[in-house]
């Protein structure tokens, strides 16, 4: 158990520069073993740069980083031996079969060949690709390729699994299959670390997350905590028609706790959405449509950065 007493990740004042560009600007992160941890943020927030440093494939510019208590600058190979990685862009070998892709990758970790074959078959089963094991990767759909990449990343039975935008570009059905598989890994006690710009993904999978913006961490907590801290229980969405949302801001002042005027709608933050809507009607306003929903991480992000997550 000595290994598990170490934090899986410990970063202090971590920065990453590429020339003059500062991709990560001093972040502090600590992830416990067995935790599911997320980096949420828009494109260019520094999530992938952070992830690559954690994966032991990108040198730290300044600050300290420890993975399993080890320094990636001196113990990169040892760290990578205990990690599973799912990169943002699939780098499977298109000309090899599914099974061979996994075996070859397992061999990079010096796992005996017979053991590689056994694990590969077991993992193809886990990601529901067994029937295609002797087919070629080129013939797979995007979602299947991503599942195969996940199976590949599990060949060395990693203690921590790093996923960089695991479901970007996948259709909703493929995303749900993938979430289900990741949820099972989480139940098996694997530490999951993922980046995403989908708030629903973060809510589904993460025990705890940080919101990143322009290389910095702007908030940290569980999805629930963040919503409680930065948003209200409910949100009332009002649509007054194209271009006329801003005009109604003045007449909405005082309804709910806070207003957010977007191009296509006005968000009214209130603990009780229905009574806020009642108040809107009492003031004689007639929105084209209205919707009361629960607060989400999207609202948290909007509050923290003034921008929408998915542009």
């Amino acid at each position, binding site marked *: 158990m000595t290994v598990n007493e170490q934090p899986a990740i410990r970063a202090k004042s971590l920065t990453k520069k590429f020339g003059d560009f500062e991709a990560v600007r001093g972040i502090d992160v600590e992830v416990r073993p067995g935790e599911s941890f997320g980096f949420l943020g828009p494109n260019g927030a520094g999530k992938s740069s952070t992830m690559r440093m954690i994966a032991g494939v990108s040198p730290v510019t300044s600050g300290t980083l420890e993975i399993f208590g080890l320094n990636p600058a001196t113990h990169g190979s040892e760290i990578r031996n205990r990690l599973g990685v799912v*990169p943002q862009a699939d780098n499977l070998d298109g000309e090899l079969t599914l099974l061979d892709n996994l075996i070859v990758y397992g061999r990079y970790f010096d796992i005996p060949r017979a053991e590689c074959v056994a694990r590969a078959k077991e993992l193809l089963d886990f990601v529901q690709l067994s029937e295609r094991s002797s087919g070629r990767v080129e013939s797979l759909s995007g979602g299947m390729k991503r599942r195969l990449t996940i199976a590949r990343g599990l060949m060395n039975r990693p203690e921590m699994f790093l996923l960089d935008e695991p479901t970007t570009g996948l259709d909703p059905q493929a995303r749900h299959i993938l979430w289900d598989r990741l949820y099972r890994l989480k139940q098996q006690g694997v530490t999951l670390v993922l980046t995403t710009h989908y708030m629903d993904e973060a809510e589904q999978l993460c025990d705890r997350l940080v919101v990143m913006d322009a290389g910095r961490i702007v908030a940290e907590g569980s999805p629930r905590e963040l919503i409680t801290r930065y948003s209200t229980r409910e949100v009332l969405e009002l649509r007054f028609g194209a271009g006329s949302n801003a005009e109604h801001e003045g007449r909405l002042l005082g309804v709910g706790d806070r207003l957010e005027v977007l191009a296509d709608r006005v968000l009214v933050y209130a603990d009780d959405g229905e009574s806020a809507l009642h108040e809107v009607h009492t003031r004689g306003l007639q929105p084209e449509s209205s919707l009361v929903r629960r607060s989400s991480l999207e609202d948290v992000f909007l509050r923290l950065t003034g921008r929408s997550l998915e542009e």
Partner: protein
Amino acid sequence: MTTPASVRVLEMQMLLLKRIWKTNLTLSFLQPLLFFLGMGLGVGSLVDDRASSSEALGDISYATFLGPGLLATTAMLTAAGESLWPVLGGFKWDGSYEAMAATRLTAPQVVRGQFLWLAVRMGIAVGGVAVVLAVHPDTRSWGILPAVPAALLCGLVFTAWITAWAASREYDTSFSNVQRLVITPLFLFGGAFYPVDSLPDALRPVAWVTPLWHGVELCRGFVLHTLGMTEALGHVAVLAIWLIPGWIVCDRLFAKRLYR
């Protein structure tokens, strides 16, 4: 129980080779055979009739002169073909090096695996030439056995430097110029087709420093039993002096590109 990392990288390449080995092996035999027949026997029939040729070639037929050198040129041409686009592709297009870099493999291990793969790849091609030489009575010799590794050593020099070039490029625009301006002139002027002594005085020293000439001389010397121990060691030393810095440069470039 553990397998060297370079061998584990090679396993991946061998799986890919398994898919194309039939055409690959056929071509390996065909190309040197065509050279041997076309140049050795075709041009040879012109050369061998001239009185001055026996002086320049040392009382052997042109085919006998040419054949052993093809071991070294074949290694070089294979190295060039397999170390430009495939190497840049490993970084940029198929991401195979990136996949390796995420595992416990280190950059020098990836480089070693790549070189080992090239040695196998060149071995197949050079082996094809060796078979042609063994079949022809004038070049049939036990010297073919040491000539094959000599050709591979020469090929590894090209592997190292061409791999380094490819690993340091962002785009492949310069690659056909490497073929045209480096490999083809070496192929023509490296002493495989005629003795370097027949070149103008000013060009001879150029041939002497190029690794191909040393490879050609080693192979020819082994096959025709015309090489003394000191000479042989000298050629090997020059090739080693070319190889080692190229290898170090590759290690650095791979580390820089994979872990940035």
